[in-house]
């Protein structure tokens, strides 16, 4: 409850600040348009205004203030513009009975989500396998771990087109290339967290199993795996957000046919800032939902295991 009030307050402040920021950000565009439409603007001429301070322009042309919140292609769209666009492309689409039309963010969100989930599953699987290998084999620990870190310093956006071309060449198209890129981003947090988790049992807990003469396999299922669960969930939450970014990056070079990435790109090509912002928010909302969902699963699983107080 306290949190809710705090969040709402912060949101209110941010939105107020956002509206205020629209003034300086959009004033030049608004004035140029107003001038073309015949209004009197001081000073005259877009070129003269180029190097002037935005605040001064706002003060000198106060008639234009309202227009900075309703521009067609603003530098910074106002909150309500983004909200309206989001509604038009989601809720309104559902009401019209075509939620899967290609102008609907539900459709594009689903395209991205499916690649995200597939990639997340692959990345998590790979990450867990690697972590198990690293924990059980010293060679893997010493040789793979440093390179896993290096792999994350490579800019994925440079690699993505190459991955896609290589996969094309072996006949793989569609959702899989995107999923692989998204797996590439999500496996790393899982490896790191899972290695930490599988190593979290202390010496005493391990020794206990030794006195029982338990096999490595029994040790894994009875001790290491359950002990790693809290760590696993923490990294899964990071991993799924990374997966979503991966799926979006993967959409850019595949012809940006559909998906939130395609909306971002399309918006960017045609200067549709409102469309970019709504796609951005849709992506962030999707990520937040996925993380929240994992949080719920985490709570249920840990509770069942008796690990949460």
């Amino acid at each position, binding site marked *: 409850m306290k949190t809710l009030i705090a969040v709402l307050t912060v*949101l209110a402040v941010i939105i107020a600040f956002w509206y205020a920021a629209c003034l300086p950000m959009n004033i030049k565009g608004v004035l140029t348009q107003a001038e073309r439409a015949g209004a009197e603007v001081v000073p005259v001429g877009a070129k003269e205004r180029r190097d002037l301070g935005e605040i001064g322009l706002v003060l000198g042309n106060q008639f234009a203030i309202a227009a900075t919140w309703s521009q067609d292609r603003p530098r910074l769209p106002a909150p309500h513009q983004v909200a309206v666009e989001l509604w038009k492309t989601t809720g309104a689409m559902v009401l019209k009975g075509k939620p899967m039309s290609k102008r609907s963010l539900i459709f594009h969100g689903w395209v991205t989500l499916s690649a995200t989930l597939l990639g997340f599953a692959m990345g998590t699987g790979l990450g867990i396998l690697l972590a198990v290998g690293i924990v059980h084999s010293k060679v893997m620990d010493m040789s793979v771990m440093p390179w896993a870190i290096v792999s994350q310093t490579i*800019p994925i956006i440079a690699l993505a087109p*190459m991955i896609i071309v290589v996969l094309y060449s072996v006949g793989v198209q569609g959702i899989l290339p995107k999923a692989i890129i998204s797996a590439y981003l999500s496996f790393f947090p899982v490896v790191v967290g899972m290695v930490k988790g599988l190593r979290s049992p202390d010496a005493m807990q391990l020794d206990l199993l030794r006195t029982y003469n338990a096999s490595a396999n029994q040790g894994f299922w009875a001790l290491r795996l359950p002990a790693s669960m809290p760590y696993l969930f923490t990294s899964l939450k990071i991993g799924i957000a990374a997966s979503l970014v991966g799926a*979006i990056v993967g959409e850019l070079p595949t012809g940006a046919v559909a998906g939130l*990435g395609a909306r*971002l790109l399309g918006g960017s090509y045609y200067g549709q800032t409102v469309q970019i912002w709504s796609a951005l928010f849709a992506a962030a909302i999707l990520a937040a939902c996925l993380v929240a969902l994992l949080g719920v699963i985490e709570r249920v699983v840990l509770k069942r295991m008796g690990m949460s107080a």
Partner: protein
Amino acid sequence: MMLVILAALVWCGGWWVNARLANGPQSDSRGVQLLVPVIFGVTLLLVWQLLVKGLQIPMVILPSPVDIAVAFGANLSKLWQDFLQTFVKGALSGYVMGCSAAFLMAIVMDRSDFLRRGLLPVGNFVAALPIVGTAPILVMWFGFDWHSKAAVVVVMVFFPVLVNTVAGLRETSAMQRDLMQTYAASYWQSFFKLRLPAALPFVFNGLKISTTLALVGAIVAEFFGSPTVGMGFRISTSVGKLSLDMVWAEIVVAALAGSMFYGAVAMVEKILTFWHPSQRG
């Protein structure tokens, strides 16, 4: 075909040597700990070279390590220029600004429970905005030169550092805080003598994550507009020219710079948090 078989042999050989080293008596010495990953990397490169040649993969798809090394050697000054533009001007300045801002913000949030409750969820939401969407916007706002790259980096590193620092500043045990209470220590006394040192391991966690984010962020931003220099610029234009060797040379620079940046921060961490169990080994 011969080469492919050879590649398999090299792989097994490299693995065998590493297995010997890692399970050998010297496995905990610094030398071996460096050698094993190096051998792994070299094996990987050899296998790559042999497979590319063996399967006759065209250079425009995947150049061999030798091709990449040649391109690297032939374009040193260009690579250096790109490195300066992207890493020093874009990534580093953005990193410093973003991390400092996040740190100051974390202190403010630490002092006000209300702000912390309100800002953390909103911050997590903002952190989920995909960079490929924010980068074009920031290029539009901050222009084509490194300023917009630094802005992208600021946005990317801000939240990991913020979240970790906030968590770190709350990491002290009740007993450690109570001790300060019995001394009737002021806020800043307990901040500098207790909370800050205790938070350092967390802060560095955020700082380390941010090193790779910073470089990747600066490069990605250059894809959406840049002057005619920079690692991201070079990568995106070289793909168009099918100079894949140049693309990979830049990727090598990125990996080197990123790893060294990470290593440098990790080293500072080792010095400053020598007392933490994870560093005592």
